[in-house]
């Protein structure tokens, strides 16, 4: 049975909390049917006698049958009891014992169970590579086995997959946060910071981004051109650089650049949420280093006197090129890689140093005998060793003795080896980090395409679902008519009953609405239902649990989290506005439903708000073939209202209109009109005013699938039993 159905008793039991609040007495429960194998509701005497005998049986070793989703596994009881901490090894499995078939039934994945059972048999837990890490973890959690026990053969694999998965989840969460609409307005400081960090947020931000990039480039090029030879000095005849020739122009350029950089730095400093952290960050240090030389040179008395220091300062100007790392993700990735490969780099450096010293020493002593040797000292030989080990071989220092040549040969060979070893580690790190950052961008782009494909798939299968549902409805009718109750699903009837109790407690009724914001949305819709966080992700293929999130909440624009609607995907039927009352493609993000004017805070109940008479755009999904119109007709005794008299949604829904609606809505029927390319014949009206149907999420046969529903707005002082 569906596991959520197992919680229904809990939900119903907890519902007694509504009873003192109820305005009306609650309806009687649905008929009780005895389900096979369930004892009647009277408290049963504990089956101690049965237990003792079964305990007696357990003493000797016996074969246990484990039925996992139809696949039967058999093993000795003692095998399972090897690990008493787990589910199978302890008394916990008794909860899953089926008396009739005398086996333990688990509704889980049999493939993973095989691995788990092997653990009991062999003592080694393996991780099958083709399994999804999340599913595997879940199974382990269910059976009470810690993943630590995974054997050495599979442990690394498991760890890697787990790490990837965690990183992916973190990425997803981060990006979800990015995608969320920011409901509250940001202060100018916050918005400025966002603009700085992410140039895509607004045009100003990207303008700023490109302008700073341009000036960085200009500054770097100016630095470079500063030193190019520009023709001889007319006075002295010596060649001079462009910087000396066009001093003033270069100075102006430099000033402009530095001013821009200064302004940028101070703006960032102001906008930063944590100024101390910002000041200590690498980019900020680079910024400061890039502009300080200019200011220092401004305040220095005279260029000539402190030329040495001045020249050094000019060198620092080249650091401006590092400012490009804000503009380039690849640079950032490179920097991050180097940081993360610090140990490999350190090893490389250390081993090189060792080798250099060794070879330089040997070289020096080997070449000492040569008359005019370049190897004057060991440090002098360092240069030769470095050049040789990196296979550069300038040729300015060459050994002349045969011993020296031998050492030189060995040196160059070993140089190749030492340098080649840590490089692949660095490369693989770089590759991993780079691909991760690329993947994030790719996923964002793919997400939109994926969602539209999913929508298409849903639309295509909706008709099949409608047909199946109508068949089931028909069955329910037949069973009611003939009095044969056996076809009815007790779970559904109990669920309906629960919803009915809720309605009576609060003196309201569940209604249906169309996507063009009928009725309850018009009524101010002030009960902010908030985001239905009904996550049906665990339901899997439990088709009984068909939820019908019609366009009931079309009036609320809430950014739903994706998880709330996964059930839509699994049930493959959600066509928007299927006139038989099927579920609607309820993602607000699909923009199939019109959005309200005011998003409501989901946790407070806002007072009655009058929706101003605006044109509320009805955005239709271009691929949807059904159009959904809810038209109020009067009941069979009154003629069908002409179109002009129908309720005008664009009117402001104030008290006047509301009473009008009340008047019309008493004993109204709701008729759904729709036009469809695949006309399924839905749209006829029926008048069954005596049956109450709950709009239960559990019911396939729910009357809300009927084309008409008896909509009654109960007046507060009179109560008509429906």
């Amino acid at each position, binding site marked *: 049975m569906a596991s*959520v159905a*197992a919680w*229904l*008793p809990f939900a119903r*039991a907890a*519902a*007694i*909390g509504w*009873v*003192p609040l109820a*305005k009306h007495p609650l*309806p*009687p*429960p649905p008929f009780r049917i005895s*389900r096979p*194998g*369930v*004892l009647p509701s009277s*408290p*049963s005497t*504990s089956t*101690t006698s049965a*237990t003792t005998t079964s305990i007696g049986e357990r003493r000797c070793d016996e074969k246990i049958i484990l039925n996992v989703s139809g696949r039967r596994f058999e093993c000795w009881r003692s095998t399972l009891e090897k690990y008493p901490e787990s589910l199978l090894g302890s*008394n916990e499995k*008794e909860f*899953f014992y089926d*008396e009739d078939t005398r086996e333990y039934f688990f509704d889980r994945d049999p493939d993973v169970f095989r691995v788990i059972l092997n653990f009991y048999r062999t003592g080694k837990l393996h991780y099958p590579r083709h399994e999804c890490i999340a599913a595997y973890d879940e199974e382990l*959690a*269910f059976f*009470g086995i810690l993943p*630590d026990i995974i054997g050495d053969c599979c442990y690394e694999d498991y*760890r890697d997959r787990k*790490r990837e998965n965690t990183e992916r989840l973190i990425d997803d969460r981060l990006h979800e946060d990015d995608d969320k609409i920011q409901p509250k307005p940001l202060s100018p400081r916050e918005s400025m910071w966002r603009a700085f960090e992410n140039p895509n947020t607004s045009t100003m931000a990207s303008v700023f981004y490109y302008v700073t990039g341009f000036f960085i480039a200009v500054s770097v090029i100016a630095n470079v051109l500063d030193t190019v030879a520009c023709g001889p000095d007319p006075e002295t005849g010596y060649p001079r650089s462009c910087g000396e020739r066009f001093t003033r122009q270069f100075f102006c350029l430099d000033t402009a650049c530095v001013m821009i950089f200064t302004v940028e730095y101070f703006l960032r400093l102001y906008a930063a949420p944590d100024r101390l952290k910002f000041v200590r960050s690498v980019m900020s240090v680079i910024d400061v280093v890039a502009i300080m030389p200019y200011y220092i040179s401004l305040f220095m008395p005279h260029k000539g006197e402190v030329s040495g220091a001045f020249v050094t300062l000019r060198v620092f100007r080249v650091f401006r090129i590092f400012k490009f790392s804000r503009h380039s993700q690849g640079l950032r990735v490179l920097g991050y890689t180097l940081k993360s490969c610090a*140990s490999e780099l350190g*090893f490389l450096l250390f081993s090189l140093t060792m080798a250099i010293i060794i070879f330089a020493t040997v070289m020096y002593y080997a070449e000492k005998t040569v008359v005019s040797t370049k190897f004057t000292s060991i440090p002098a030989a360092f240069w030769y060793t470095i050049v040789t080990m990196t296979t550069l071989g300038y040729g300015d220092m060459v050994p002349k003795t045969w011993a020296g040549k031998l050492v030189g040969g060995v040196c160059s060979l070993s140089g190749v080896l030492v340098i080649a070893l840590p490089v692949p580690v660095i490369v693989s790190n770089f590759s991993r980090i780079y691909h991760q950052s690329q993947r994030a961008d790719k996923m964002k782009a793919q997400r939109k395409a994926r969602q539209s494909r999913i929508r298409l798939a849903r639309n295509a299968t909706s008709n099949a679902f409608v047909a199946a549902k109508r068949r089931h409805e028909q069955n329910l009718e037949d069973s009611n008519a003939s009095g044969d109750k056996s076809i009815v699903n007790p779970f559904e009837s*109990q669920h309906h009953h*629960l*919803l009915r109790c*809720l309605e009576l407690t*609060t003196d309201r*009724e*569940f*209604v249906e609405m169309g996507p063009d914001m009928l*009725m309850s*949305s018009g009524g101010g819709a*002030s*009960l902010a239902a908030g985001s*239905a*966080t*009904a996550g049906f992700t665990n339901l899997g293929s439990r088709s009984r649990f068909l939820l019908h*999130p019609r366009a*009931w*909440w079309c009036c*609320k624009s809430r950014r739903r989290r994706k998880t709330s609607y996964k059930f839509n995907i699994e049930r493959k039927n959600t066509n928007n506005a299927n006139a038989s009352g099927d579920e609607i493609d309820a993602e607000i993000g699909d923009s199939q439903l019109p959005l309200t004017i005011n998003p409501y805070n*989901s*946790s407070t*109940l806002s007072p*009655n708000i009058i929706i101003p008479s605006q044109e509320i755009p009805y955005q239709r999904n271009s691929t949807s073939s059904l159009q959904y119109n809810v038209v109020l007709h009067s009941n069979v005794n009154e003629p069908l209202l002409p179109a002009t008299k129908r309720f005008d949604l664009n009117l402001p829904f104030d008290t006047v209109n509301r009473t009008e609606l009340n008047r019309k809505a008493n004993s109204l029927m709701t008729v759904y009109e729709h036009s469809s390319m695949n006309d399924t014949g839905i749209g006829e009206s029926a008048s069954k005013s005596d049956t109450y149907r709950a709009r239960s*999420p559990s019911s396939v046969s729910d009357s809300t699938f009927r084309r008409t529903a008896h909509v009654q*707005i109960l007046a507060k002082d009179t109560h008509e039993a429906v």
Partner: protein
Amino acid sequence: MPKTSNTDYDDDGLETFKRYKPRSLDELTTRTKFSKKEIQLIYQGFKQECPSGIVNEETFKHIYGQFFPFADTSSYARLVFATFDLRSSGCVTFEDFLICLSTLCRGSIEDRLRWIFTLYDTKKSGKITKDDFHVIVCAVYALLGNVASPCCDLETIREHTTTVFQRFDKSHQGYITMEDFMSFCLNDPNIIQSIDVLRTIV
């Protein structure tokens, strides 16, 4: 040469598995009023939803959300969770859950009324004030979602709260004690009958 430790493995250390296993089936059969079969069914559903054996408030919210679609189930789920959480630890084990469920489904009318009182008494002060009532009523209305008609606004809720509170608070003390509550409910046949209506078969 110091070897920097590979922090990757330390970072994604296993989450601490707070696993809980209930005691034996037989013990639970004696302590609660359910039969063995019923406990088995309940446990299977429980375990499927919470493999670690412990429920927290999030799960309650999620489960309620599956029965009351379009609703904001967080407030009611929080209230119910508070009554189930006997040790105020933030986690409900299967035993706690089963014991509460047994009281609710199979207990005497007084036990159930006592449970309702605990549900309403959000501050655990032994008295229910009008604010407590208001909280409950808001939570119940929130379960409706916005799909019910006529619409519900703050005024309606306040009205409802006042009406019901006045019904209970005959002596106009401003608060209701357990005895008042119990005596009132026991004397009201509607309430007794309604409570009976929600008796469930597993």
